[in-house]
């Protein structure tokens, strides 16, 4: 191995890559992160501009197949109920997420023991709790401790966001129904100084803002427009990566360890691209599970139309209130597991003519109905979004595309994903209950989207962790069973998906894995 090797290459500068780079660099390791995209240019579409709704759909497009930036790779989703969404660049999809922050619950890590399906995680809520707390400190989360849906303990460092008029309306309705709710936890900064001093991009906790400045200051190096095409392996050890720079030149970088943080599609894609004679089925794939067990959180949305203005025409970051009332399994419902509800605004006037849940109701939108329909939705339509747990199955998977290639000629990804009967029954129940709550709050109409296709933000499970190398790709800390200095610190390792937005757990997992990585490093 050459002498110029760095301690760690991190592939991907998104949520996990940023958290990991920050931890390792602060500990004094030499770290180079290779990121196929670039820094976000917030000035290209700022929320206060008159054309922001129009412009946002291009630069901030959530579907890489539509955006087709040079940083993107194509994803054949023709065999999937849900389209995969992501933003490839510094900060990753945290640049585009809606900043909803929810821990998983203890039972989310014990799905097999509690409900007899899927598998238990090889770690517990209690293992992750200190890392949740640290992540909430690092991301400066707003929220309130004490939600009875979780064990007692400390909560986010900042108070919750206002629940707004529509949050109060829904909270009262849920109280009358006897259903639990709680002020939403959100990754939006509560500090007005920060907002005014650093510009609109500083409103939300994306890792280009929260982590990369610190990581770079600690000595991490970030190479943008650097697309990794292969992890190099020699004698059973990862020796580095080959990547293609922005000029199309192939570069080789050597390292003592390689950490993949390229998301639940990018990571299995890279492992499959790294196949060799020694690893003909892809790297770290002796279990045959690389790419399998893809989970995408089938997603439903229910909006209510009210007769009065409820201040819903604001940018939909964070969540006003959340409800876990129907989160835990109740066998009498005919399905297992549950979904978190998050109440949010529905945004500007263009947003309420399209996307979810409006697409299912747009047959009355145009022509003679246009003005009255738009008026009825604008500023009067809070929306529950429902993040449903889906269970891992081998047939939901990521493979390499036979037909699509990225801008560097590398095979794109192909996803196959079918929301199963349990997911569909779960969403039916939850959307009906969410609609019931909106009617109880005074909505004159509800619009229900039971399974939104363009909703695959949460990419999980495609390099599952476990104690047994025969049925897992990594150990509980994200170290691959097959290649001991190759690690996966992103959501590919998730055993099950939980039914909440995954960013909190993924941030905590990256801290958990990084902490163990450093313990092992210093123990050598």
């Amino acid at each position, binding site marked *: 191995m050459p002498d110029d090797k760095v301690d760690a290459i991190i592939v991907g500068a998104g949520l996990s890559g940023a958290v990991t780079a920050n931890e390792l660099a602060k500990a004094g390791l030499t770290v180079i992160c290779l990121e196929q995209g670039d820094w976000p240019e917030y000035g290209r579409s700022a929320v*206060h*501009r*008159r*054309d*922001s709704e*129009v412009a946002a759909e*291009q630069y901030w497009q959530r579907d890489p197949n539509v955006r087709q*930036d*040079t940083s993107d790779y194509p994803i054949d989703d023709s065999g999937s109920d849900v389209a995969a969404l992501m933003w490839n660049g510094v900060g990753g999809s945290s640049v585009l997420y809606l900043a909803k922050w929810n821990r998983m619950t*203890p*039972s989310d890590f*014990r799905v097999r*023991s*509690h409900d007899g399906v899927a598998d238990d995680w090889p770690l*517990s809520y*209690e293992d992750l709790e200190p890392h949740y707390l640290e992540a909430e400190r690092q991301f400066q989360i*707003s929220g309130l401790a004490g939600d*009875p*849906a*979780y064990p007692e303990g400390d909560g986010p460092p900042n*108070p*919750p*966001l*206002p*629940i707004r008029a529509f949050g109060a309306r829904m*909270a009262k309705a849920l*109280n009358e129904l006897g259903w*639990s709710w*709680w*002020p939403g936890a959100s990754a*939006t*900064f*509560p500090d*007005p100084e920060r*907002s005014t001093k650093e510009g*609109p991009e500083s409103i939300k906790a994306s890792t280009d803002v929260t982590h990369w400045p610190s990581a770079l200051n600690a000595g991490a190096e970030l190479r943008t427009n650097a697309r990794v095409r292969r992890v190099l392996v020699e004698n059973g050890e990862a020796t580095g990566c080959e990547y293609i720079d*922005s*000029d*199309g030149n192939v570069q080789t970088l050597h390292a003592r360890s390689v950490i993949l943080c390229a998301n639940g599609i990018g990571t299995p894609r890279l492992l499959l691209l790294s196949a060799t004679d020694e690893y003909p089925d892809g790297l770290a794939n002796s279990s045959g599970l690389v790419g399998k067990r893809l989970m995408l959180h089938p997603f439903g949305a229910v909006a209510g139309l009210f007769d009065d203005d409820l201040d819903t025409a*604001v*940018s939909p*970051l964070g969540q006003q209130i959340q409800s*876990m009332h129907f989160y835990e399994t109740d*066998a009498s419902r005919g399905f297992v597991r549950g979904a978190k509800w998050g109440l949010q605004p529905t945004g*500007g*006037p*263009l947003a309420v*003519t399209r996307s979810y849940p409006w*697409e299912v109701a747009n*047959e009355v939108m*145009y*022509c*003679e109905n*246009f*003005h*009255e329909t*738009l*008026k009825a939705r*604008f500023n009067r339509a809070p929306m529950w979004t429902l993040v449903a747990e889906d269970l891992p199955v081998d047939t939901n998977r990521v493979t390499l595309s036979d037909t699509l290639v990225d*801008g560097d000629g590398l095979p794109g990804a192909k996803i196959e994903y079918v929301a199963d009967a349990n997911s569909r029954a779960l969403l039916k129940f939850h959307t009906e209950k969410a609609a019931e709550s909106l009617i109880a709050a005074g909505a004159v109409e509800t619009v229900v989207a039971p399974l939104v296709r363009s909703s695959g933000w949460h990419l999980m499970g495609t390099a599952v962790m476990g104690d047994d190398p025969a049925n897992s790709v990594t150990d509980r800390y994200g170290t691959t069973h097959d290649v001991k200095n190759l690690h996966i610190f992103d959501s590919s390792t998730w055993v099950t998906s939980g039914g909440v937005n995954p960013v909190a757990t993924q941030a905590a997992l990256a801290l958990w894995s990084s902490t163990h990585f450093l313990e092992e490093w210093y123990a050598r």
Partner: protein
Amino acid sequence: MRSTQLSPLTSPISTSDRDLIAEIAQVLIPAGASGPSAAEVDVAGGRLDEFFEQRPDLKTAFVAIASRASGTDVDSFCRHLEASEPAVFQQLTYVIVGAFLLSPDARGWLGFTGLRGEFQTPIANDDYRLHELLAPVRSRPPSYRPTAWTPEESTA
């Protein structure tokens, strides 16, 4: 060098295409309602140009869809397109409504002054209104299942 997949179209929209777009827009956003019509805010003129300044990538497909209405009854064309090709209809309406909503008159009619940045003054942790609302929730037992929970506990 990597290939750039976007190829913005910069050629102008022809007068005949613009006339057709104006007809389509007026069908989708007609006069006689509580707000301005497409024609009243010049959707097919300046608003469309303004829209495509931001989204040149959509121009070719949009003009191609609109041109399919040539020689047809535009009202029937729109209704048929919506019923038979909803995804294509959405491409059409996205541009027309997007252009419409760039108009100060349309925004004024809605009372829309633009999206606000999301900074919000946080609630104080001791806010009495919030805690009054939360009292019924806090009075209930915890709803989570602890790590060591067993299925027998649900029937106990």
